[in-house]
């Protein structure tokens, strides 16, 4: 359950709209179902009062929307940044992807978001959800009202939350948190500890589900290229519909490589994947390797930092030594 309430956000949004600070508000609205929340732009108080929602399914990272929205809009846009989103926000500023002057950012604390898939695995036929202090009360078609603990359905990325600290905002609602010493790399480490055959089998099992819908790319706040190489006929790797089985691997490896050092580990890729492929494990592998080889680095922690792959030192590990390092650790 979020400490920040919908009412708080609406009050803030309406205040900023009416005093002219912003001309639009980037927020969440209800989709087809209660748990199916979509991002929306609101421009009037009325729209906000009718449509604005905020609950445990408002996981979407809004930073990316700023790239397009700030270019189109006259005046400022209000964006609510959860800690995760604030890292992406900074990273996009580092890459000069939008004009900071055109954004009014309100930082909001986050208690961890729920995972729709986890919820659906627990209860069938969801009609509506009531958020109470002691848990969600889910009204269902078949089983009446079912109570679900927040912890039971918390998203993996939130269980392994890396930071509750908002690193960018003009104004903060509620209290700021701290960077957390999370266990987010444990799963990567357990994969690393497997034999190559086991790893191969694991990834084969995961990646074979990919349908190349591009949702991961479209949601990723690091994937804001004006034209993605996979959409560009001149790049030599364009493939909307895969021709060979290999192209998915290529897509996921290249995508992970392109965002390496820029990925803030917000977990949107895995959240939006309709096939539930744990794509964040690819990104976290890069983050873990870079942390271990080139020193701790958190993309987006500050604006203007130099990512490990656009930097070097004379004494860096050789590629072969990077393998050996894994060996010694094991």
């Amino acid at each position, binding site marked *: 359950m979020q400490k920040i309430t919908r009412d708080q956000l609406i009050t803030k949004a309406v205040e900023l709209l009416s005093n002219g600070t912003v001309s639009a508000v980037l927020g969440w609205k209800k989709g087809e179902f209660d748990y199916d929340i979509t991002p929306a732009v609101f421009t009037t108080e009325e729209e906000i009062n009718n449509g604005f929602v905020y609950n445990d399914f408002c996981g979407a990272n809004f930073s990316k929307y700023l790239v397009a929205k700030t270019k189109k809009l006259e005046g400022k846009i209000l964006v609510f940044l959860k800690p995760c989103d604030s890292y992406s926000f900074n990273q996009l500023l580092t890459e000069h992807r939008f004009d900071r002057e055109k954004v009014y950012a309100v930082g909001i604390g986050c208690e961890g978001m729920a995972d729709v898939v986890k919820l659906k695995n627990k209860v069938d036929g969801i009609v509506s959800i009531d958020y109470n202090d002691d848990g969600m009360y889910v009204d269902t078609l078949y089983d009446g009202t079912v109570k679900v603990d927040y912890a039971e359905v918390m998203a993996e990325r939130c269980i392994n939350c890396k930071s509750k600290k908002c690193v960018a905002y003009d104004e903060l609602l509620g209290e700021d948190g701290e960077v957390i010493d999370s266990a987010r790399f444990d799963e990567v480490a357990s994969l690393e500890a497997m034999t190559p055959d086991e790893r191969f089998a694991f990834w084969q099992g995961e990646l074979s589900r990919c349908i190349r819908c591009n949702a991961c790319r479209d949601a990723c706040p690091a994937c804001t290229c004006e034209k993605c190489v996979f959409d560009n006929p001149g790049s030599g790797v364009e493939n909307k519909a895969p021709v060979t089985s*290999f192209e998915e691997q290529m897509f996921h*490896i290249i995508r992970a490589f392109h965002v390496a050092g820029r990925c803030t580990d917000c977990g949107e890729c895995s959240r939006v994947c309709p096939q539930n492929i744990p794509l964040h494990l690819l990104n976290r592998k*890069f983050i873990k*390797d*870079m942390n271990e*080889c080139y020193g701790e680095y958190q993309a987006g922690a500050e604006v203007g930092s130099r990512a490990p792959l656009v930097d070097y030192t004379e004494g860096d590990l050789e590629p072969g*030594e*990077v*393998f050996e390092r894994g060996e010694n650790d094991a």
Partner: protein
Amino acid sequence: MQMKEYKPLIVAFCCNWCSYAGADLAGNNRLNYPADVKIIRVPCSCRVNPMFILRAFQRGADGVILCGCHPGDCHYTSGNYYTRRRMAMLFSMLDYLGIERERTRVEWVSAAEGAKFAATMNDFVEKVTALGENKRLEDLRCKR
């Protein structure tokens, strides 16, 4: 019918200033290495995009080796330092996906190291031959 002896397909990216010259020197000195190695000339090892490497695997290469100037000797002062980081990360990722780590390699070969070039290629071809055909990257998606 006799089984055709397995010959791997190796793509070697060599930087123009050191490693390509090192390969030329291996030739000048008539140092043999398997014809399975096909060299592509690039201005600097840092020109090699991971996409090229994956593309080679996609089209059936069994091993890809990247050769550049020794760290500190880059013709462009710092190119190979970036190569080192990029390839360390890329190869570690391929390893993570279960691709045999012997299929990829970065080696620093100077223009004077013809012998090293030939020895490196002999060794690399031997290792890749032992692994056999590269199926994994192709098969990563297809669960049979």
